[in-house]
């Protein structure tokens, strides 16, 4: 290895570049470490103890956050919404994308263009009419239930009627409204992704299935979906991330604590009179860890999905 001006500048610049990359990586990772370290301190030491990992590690903060802080309920809610919304999006968007890609019907191009336009046109403040819609339908539902209760009381036992109406009002309706709203949020992108994937899929397998007498729905279920696994994986991850991290619609639609997902629960916990910082940090760790685990496991998929879209589009 010759030591001349050229190799020296190469080595120096290479070293500086590495230092630069490492510094930026540290800024990406440090806040998470700080959050985790803070969650192991106590309320009295968290304002003075500035070590990243404290000497005395209070693991019970996680248990306290899960039970007293309510983060257990929030976590289960987030899990509930994420799985149901992702399942719903995969079903609905793969059906529609398959139809847009492989079937012909009047208005097909117009409808697909509508979905594309929805992706590209920004609708700031769209939560306002959604909130109005959810409330209006809720009022209609409440009126309908109130009007029908006298009739139902004559036929069914009293506890059952009141129990069901209060269940519908406090649990079933808000959850369903939120789930449907979130399905809509991810719909355009998912349909677009799946349609472009189905377009590139070879037709021979479908033709073979058709000759074997498979119905359209059967082809969708047995041929198209299994072949689309990579695209569906991207859609699952993308939408799961969006639902888990979503805040504003949960803020507006889900107003009682036992319905809230994690992000909303964090803001509620943070807004209480004297914020219990270690418990808040523990709650944030509970929110972040599942995302980090899934991200680190699936990162090859995620990155491939993003770069594919970026380079083509």
């Amino acid at each position, binding site marked *: 290895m010759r030591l001349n001006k050229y190799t020296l500048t190469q080595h120096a610049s290479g070293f500086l*570049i590495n230092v*630069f990359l490492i510094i*930026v*990586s540290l*800024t*990406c*990772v440090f*806040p*998470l470490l*700080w*959050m985790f370290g803070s969650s192991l301190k106590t309320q009295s030491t968290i*304002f*003075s103890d*500035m070590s990243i990992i404290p000497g005395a590690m209070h693991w019970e903060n996680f248990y306290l956050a899960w039970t007293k802080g309510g983060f257990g309920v929030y976590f289960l809610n987030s899990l509930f919404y994420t799985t149901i919304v992702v399942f719903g999006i995969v079903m*609905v*968007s793969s*059906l*529609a994308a398959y*139809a*847009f890609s492989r079937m*012909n*019907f*009047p208005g097909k191009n117009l*409808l697909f263009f509508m979905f594309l336009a*929805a992706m590209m*046109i*920004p*609708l*700031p*403040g769209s939560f*306002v*009419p*959604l909130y*109005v*819609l959810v409330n*209006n*339908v809720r009022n*209609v539902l409440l009126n309908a239930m109130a009007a029908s209760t006298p009739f139902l009381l004559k036929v069914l036992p009293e506890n059952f009627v009141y129990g069901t109406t209060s269940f519908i009002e406090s649990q079933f309706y808000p959850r369903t409204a939120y789930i*449907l709203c979130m399905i*809509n949020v991810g*719909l355009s992108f998912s349909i677009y992704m799946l349609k472009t994937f189905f377009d590139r899929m070879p037709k021979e397998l479908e033709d073979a299935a058709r000759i074997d007498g498979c119905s*359209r*729905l059967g082809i969708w279920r047995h041929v198209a979906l299994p072949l689309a696994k990579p695209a569906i994986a991207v859609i699952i991850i993308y939408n799961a991330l969006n639902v888990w*991290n*979503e*805040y*504003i619609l949960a803020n507006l639609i889900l107003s009682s604590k036992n319905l809230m997902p994690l*992000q909303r629960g*964090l*803001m509620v916990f*943070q807004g209480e009179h004297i914020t219990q*910082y270690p418990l808040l940090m523990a709650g*944030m760790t509970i929110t*972040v860890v599942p995302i980090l685990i899934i991200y680190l496991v699936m*990162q090859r998929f995620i*990155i491939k999905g*993003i*770069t594919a879209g*970026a*380079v083509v589009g």
Partner: protein
Amino acid sequence: MGFHLAEKIKQCYNALHNATPKQKVAGTVLLLAALETVFLFFHDSVVFWILAYGLVTLALIFLVLANIIKKSLAAFLFVVPALAIFSIFYIYPFFKVLQLSQHAWDGISPKMVFVGLSNFVEIMKDKIWWVSMRNAGYITFIALTFQNALALALALACDRQIRAKNFYRVIFFIPPVLSEVVVGLIWRWIYDGDYGFLNYTLNLLGLHQLTHNWLSDPNTALTCVAIIHSWKGFGWGFMILLAGLQTIPKELYEAARVDGANVWQSFKNVTIPLMIPVFVLVMILTILGSMQAFVLILSMTGGGPGYHTEVPVTRILASMQGSSMFGYACAQGLTFGVILMMVSFAQMGISRKLKQA
């Protein structure tokens, strides 16, 4: 009789298909005017919408009976779930905004008051609204410069290194994967004036005079928010720029080096011209994303000292939740949406000129 009607519908469909652009524009304008008048007479009654959907369903059933859609009924059934959800949660709110923005309503009383365009006049006079627009513009400016310059530098740095590239890709994409609530709360804690890690480090380094109440000082709050927004966002730009850089064939760089170009010259003459489409894409994504950022602000400052970190979407939320002026909130949303569309179109025009050059 049904057959003649079907024929007429087919003729209308063909006419629509073959209309000239002028006719299409005129038709759309007329359709919108008709919708406007309908909205003025039917307020927010859910019964109206149930009737509307019922009518559309009946029309579809009739068309099926008239043999038009019967062949593609299966295809329609595939699309119906997506269409139903989309029309309820996207199309209806789209038109609802058009309706509400011309009324004054507090969200509770059963009647809305038609006020025409006075909501929009109010917006023009609303000082806080324009302060929020300026703040969003500032955040976008920082994102376009600081965030994207950082993303480009990192992408260029990672373009060479083969081994560690995947490691850095994973690390740099961690901030975008986190939720804005979590990011806002963590950095709020780090920026805290009394107990935050930032001031602690500054004191440790002996830079006492630099310590601030970062998020409560009107001079620094917005910049801090903009920096954290960039911190959360640079991963996206990095990913897209790196993907773009990797599509440039290595032979071009080698040819440039053979011709005697140094690093800066090969960057200027090889990298930049080939990366212009990617730059345009990143720019438009950055602008649209940064102008609409708001959950990060809610969790970091809640709007800031005074109105110093308000952005348009937080103003819309405040009009709705704080002041209960639903009509005004919708008017704000509509105005902001139109402004964003104009920015997009302007950017597309500029990018087309750049691509031709």
